[in-house]
């Protein structure tokens, strides 16, 4: 896959997320989002401030074009982009940045990628559910929503990660 195709895939996944947000709400306990894995897979050559701006814009587009509250996805996604660098270094080591390579399942293994994706998903969902509830939902509801959303979103994210980070990119 050519390097420039990342953004094409990214755009398509944003459209897919819009579909998920508009038609995938089958339970108040489940929020499906692949936005965190999209932010995590932004190529390592992209600096963190730029990655945050991309994440912010993506979040806004999803908020705007779905039935969400404007600013909610953006609010939860920007921290993931901020910590993208740290997560990648912590899970895959600093070598990726030195070689300006991106991670992939084929290169780094399923377990490492799954761990990094679950960290990003968890961080996003904690912020999203917390801000969405606005302090009005009981802790038990939020915890159940977090658990269910993490499981479903993780599966969706792992299906998307291969498209975003193919081994030949």
């Amino acid at each position, binding site marked *: 896959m050519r390097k420039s195709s990342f953004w094409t895939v990214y755009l398509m996944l944003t459209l897919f997320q819009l579909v998920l947000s508009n038609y995938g709400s089958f339970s108040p306990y489940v929020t499906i989002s692949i936005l965190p894995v999209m932010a995590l897979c932004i190529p390592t050559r992209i600096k963190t*401030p730029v990655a945050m701006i991309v994440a912010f814009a993506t*979040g806004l587009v999803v908020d705007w074009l779905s039935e969400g509250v*404007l*600013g909610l996805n953006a*609010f939860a996604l*920007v*921290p993931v982009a*901020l910590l993208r660098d740290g997560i990648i270094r912590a899970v895959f080591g600093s070598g990726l940045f030195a070689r300006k390579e991106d991670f992939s399942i084929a290169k780094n293994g399923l377990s490492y990628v799954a761990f990094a994706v679950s960290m990003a998903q968890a961080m996003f969902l904690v912020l999203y559910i917390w801000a969405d509830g*606005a302090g*009005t939902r009981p802790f038990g509801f939020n915890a159940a929503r977090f658990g269910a959303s993490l499981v479903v979103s993780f599966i969706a994210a792992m299906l998307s990660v291969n498209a975003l980070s193919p081994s030949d990119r």
Partner: protein
Amino acid sequence: MPRRNSTLNTVISVAVFIVLEAAALVMLSRNDSLQKVWISRAGHAIMGKVWGSTQAVGRYFSLSSANRQLAIENQELLSRLLEAEEKLRRVKVDSMSFPVNQGFSLIPAEVVKISRGKQHNYIILNRGFEDGVQDKSGVITACGVVGVVDAVSRHHSFVFSFQNSEVSISARLGDEGSNGILVWDGVSSNGAILKEVPLQYRHHQGDTVYTSGHSIMFPPDIPIGIVGDSKIVNGATNEISVSLFQDFKALRYVSIVHNNSLDEIEDLQP
């Protein structure tokens, strides 16, 4: 150089992060009333913390003047209390057709120096004879007896602290109980011993000990401390331990008590 670049990148990242998150929060608050209330409440909490902290710092630095103001108010209240008690006593005594004394006057003072670790402890106050202080005046606070003025200079007074083995004061057990001699126990910062209490007078732990009024230096009925354990001495009297109200470690502001009838009383004595 790489470290400098790394620091710069971090600063830029944090700045961009703050700007983007702030923008997201503004949008959230403008588009949903629930989030608006939530963000506004969080903002108020943060502002409350910040302003509360700065106020606490400001208050800490103004503690000295606040303490001085409190000491003045305290002295004023003490003065009024003594005046009221004196009036009450006059009513009682007038009805029995006895002469009355002229009461006590108070001079507020601040502790300049205090010794505590010795057997003969002393206090130096910032009031002298130019302020009206005379020797043999008592020194009190709202929490009890502090000492006796031993010498007076122009602007300062030298006081024998109650925590001095040479100082003893006349004290009374409870409202109507027996009188005894109260002295420092010589060990603790708030311990005293009430001596020579006749055996026939009953007392209980927790009873309050007051100044008796039999001394020319201290007005009567100033609460001094609380009764603790007791023991019989020589089979004749009780010796009662007293826990003082006054904490000498925190002593800063006091009142010097002057008996207005002191000269007259001394003239009468042989």
